[in-house]
């Protein structure tokens, strides 16, 4: 069985032959906003849910990055790659 998550920055070819497990690597929720909160509210909060949470044991023969890509990504397998973007400069908009 092949796994292929869908981190937004993955090229299509990296997922070739893989089954899209259709999980997102970031979850959002809308926290309670009180009427008397002292500061402008952050309406949406986010947290990471990377691929290791969805893979009990790595299946064999997963598609691989090229060696150069693998070094840059920190993993040989696109299915295990997890992008993370800094919140710096994003203001109160944590994410869409």
């Amino acid at each position, binding site marked *: 069985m092949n796994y292929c998550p869908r981190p937004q920055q993955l090229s299509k070819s990296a997922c070739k032959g893989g089954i899209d497990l259709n999980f997102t690597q970031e979850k959002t929720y809308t926290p309670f906003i009180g009427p008397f909160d002292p500061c402008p509210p952050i309406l949406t909060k986010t947290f*990471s849910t*990377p*691929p*290791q949470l969805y*893979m*009990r*044991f*790595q299946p064999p023969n997963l598609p691989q990055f090229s060696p150069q890509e693998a*070094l*840059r*990504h*920190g*993993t040989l397998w696109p299915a*295990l*790659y*997890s*992008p*993370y973007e*800094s*919140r*710096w*400069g994003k203001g109160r908009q944590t994410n869409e």
Partner: protein
Amino acid sequence: MWVYEKKLQYPVRVGKCDIGMAKLLLEQYGGADGELAAALRYMNQRYTIPDKVIGLLTDISTEEFAHLEMIATMVFKLTKDATVEELRANGLAPHYVAHDSALFYENASGVPFTAAYIQAKGDPIADLYEDIAAEEKARATYQWLIDMTDDVDLQDSLKFLREREIIHSLRFREAVEILKDEQGKRTVF
């Protein structure tokens, strides 16, 4: 025995003179969920873990030392050319009076490293679950560090280190699966 390669696991380039970031990076140097804690934890637990996963702990521990070296490089690059005034302006005066510009195993708040951060329970499942938790906490620490800087070069190295925590977490989870497997069940009662 180790073979040392005189290069970093992943390049460390710091593109911005942000001395305050050095202080924050110390969380991954001598903090409770830092690379030193991780390396020492696994290198010690390895002795009493079942044979099937000893190698995994040794390998991951070794890689954690390589990560420690990367963090040290970041901190050093950020502080080596700082004047005493700059150190003081960035909250590093307490560090300076005790250590000059030397690196030290302490967290971002200046609390020195302690073995109390790590455990070796002897129970393989307890130890591996601690290891998984440690990897996830280190991943989170990297996320918050990435959030604290707009230096894309530094972010790049930190993103690599975050990804490695994810891989290590999966490997420890796989180790649990290996130990859970009925292969090792007692057949004679």
